[in-house]
């Protein structure tokens, strides 16, 4: 009986604490259905209106839909590039006869890259991109995001690549499997959970990334975070539209949390617990 009461109290406490997370979302979501005047007046009750969404999605001056498309393209392409480089790179670094100092040096550099503020790298990228005409292009931002996510992806794939049993690799070699077949048929299925976890996170981080996107893109190549920041930058802050755009851009995270919570949790906790 007492354990039952204890459990009930615990659930109640968790429910109350979750309000801290949920209520700000609900309040902002509600604000996105207000009119600007209603919001500024600070009234509690309001008649829901879709004005803000209409303005964000369909107005001629809004670029939100194009920005969402840019985010999607950059997110998918940079994720693919990060995963390719990380998987092959991890396999090479961890399972091939490199000199020790070389492996350590590269891993150390990946650590430094992870620690450097993206704004500093963005400065270097901006100069380089202008020199070769990659500023204000999707490709420039794709490369930037792939580089920013590579250290994390490399470490994560490293964990999985090291776990591929050596006996399995040798057995496949004895059966005459070519290297391509070995990688495709043996290794890839074994590291697939790692690819899923790293992939989800790479995409989310690219979708969220702001510092590089802000400085490497212009109006027609900007991504969603840049677009949201614009609402706050104008002389008169467009609050309800900011709320609507913020609500819309939280959708991918909500969706991924529903369908891929397992991989997100695995990716975020990898290495910390091992």
């Amino acid at each position, binding site marked *: 009986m007492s354990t039952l009461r204890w459990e009930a109290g*615990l*659930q109640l406490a*968790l429910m109350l*604490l*979750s309000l801290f*997370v949920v209520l*700000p*979302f609900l*309040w*902002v979501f509600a*604000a996105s259905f207000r009119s600007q005047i209603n919001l*500024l007046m*600070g009234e509690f009750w309001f008649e829901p209106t879709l004005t803000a969404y209409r303005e964000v999605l369909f107005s001629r001056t809004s670029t939100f839909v194009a920005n969402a498309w840019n985010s999607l393209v950059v997110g998918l392409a940079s994720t693919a590039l990060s995963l*390719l480089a*990380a998987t*092959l*790179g991890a*396999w090479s*670094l*961890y*399972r091939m*006869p490199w000199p020790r100092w070389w492996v350590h040096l*590269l891993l150390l*550099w*990946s650590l*430094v*890259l*992870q*620690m450097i503020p993206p*704004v*500093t*790298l963005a*400065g*270097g*990228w901006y*100069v380089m991109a202008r020199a070769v005409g990659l500023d204000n292009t999707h490709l420039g931002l794709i*490369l930037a995001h792939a*580089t920013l996510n590579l250290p994390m992806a490399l470490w994560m794939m490293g964990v999985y690549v090291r776990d591929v049993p*050596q006996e399995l*690799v040798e057995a496949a070699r004895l059966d005459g499997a*070519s*290297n*391509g077949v*070995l990688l*495709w048929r043996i*290794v*890839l299925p074994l590291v697939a959970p790692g690819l899923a976890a790293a992939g989800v996170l790479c995409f989310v981080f690219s979708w*969220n990334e702001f510092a590089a996107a*802000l400085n490497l893109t212009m109006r027609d190549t900007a991504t969603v*975070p840049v677009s*949201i920041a614009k609402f*706050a930058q104008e002389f008169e802050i467009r*609050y309800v539209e*900011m709320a609507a755009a*913020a609500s819309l851009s939280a959708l991918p995270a909500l969706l991924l949390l529903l369908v891929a*919570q397992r991989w997100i949790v695995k990716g*975020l*906790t990898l290495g*910390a*617990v091992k």
Partner: protein
Amino acid sequence: MSLATGTGAALAVPAQRVRPADPDALWRWAALSPALLLMLGLGLLPVLNLVALGFFDVHWAEGQSELRFVGTAHYAALAKDPLFGSAILNTVVFAIGAVAGQMGLGFALALLCSKATRGRTFWRAVFILPVLLPGIVIGAMWKLMMNPDFGAIAQLLDLFGLPPVDWLGNARLALFSVVLVDIWHWTPFCFLLFLAGLEALPRDVYEAAKVDGASTWQELRYVTLPLMWPTIAVTFVFRLVLAFKVFDEVYLLTGGGPGTATEVVSFTIYLRFFTQDRAGYGAAMSVAVIFLIFLMLAAAAATRRRVQPA
């Protein structure tokens, strides 16, 4: 198939690091090359670029950059720049305040959640949501919430008859407010790592503690905390590194203001490099920050060596 064609051959080499016979160095390099190209071409090259730019005055004109050599003038100016010093101080205050809050709250929440026998997956999903959102969206949400005229917090205070607080417009409060928002954003990350750590702890130790009649507090103090120490350390380092890079929330919430009250290092670099057309000075600032990071890494490595000599 493109995966399988060239680079896959590298698989043949056994895991032992140093083997005298090295039949296909080509595959080894081929498999490493995409990562190497990114890490050097887009990681090292921009840093070298910044090092070089730091010795020049840069002006953009007609899509062309004009460079004028100034030697170490930027670095001399940097040493005397009070704004750079205050930016570093702001960043340190921000990072320590935010990370301390996140770790404490995250640990308490994880302890609570780990005791629940039902619905742990559900609660975990609810609590980690803020981590997955763009920093800009978090900033936009709290810019609305913290507005003194119509924000939810002002309305809440009003319910209790309290006056509204200008969270982001008051220079003495703004950095604290940004820390609060960051705590809201990243506590879930600490919670997630701590929960995973708690769930991975061996059960039998707790049973032994129970047999020995340990109180809840003693169990926490002498069993849970020592066992969780590695997870706590990893989480701390991870969060600290991220906190030092903070940019998005500051950009949206305060734009570094009021005045320079919330100007963190990333934001100062952004201002100099991108908005004030002082790319050379911004580059020198970037180099100084990267150098500080190297120092921190070296210090961390040195302490680690001293702590675990055996």
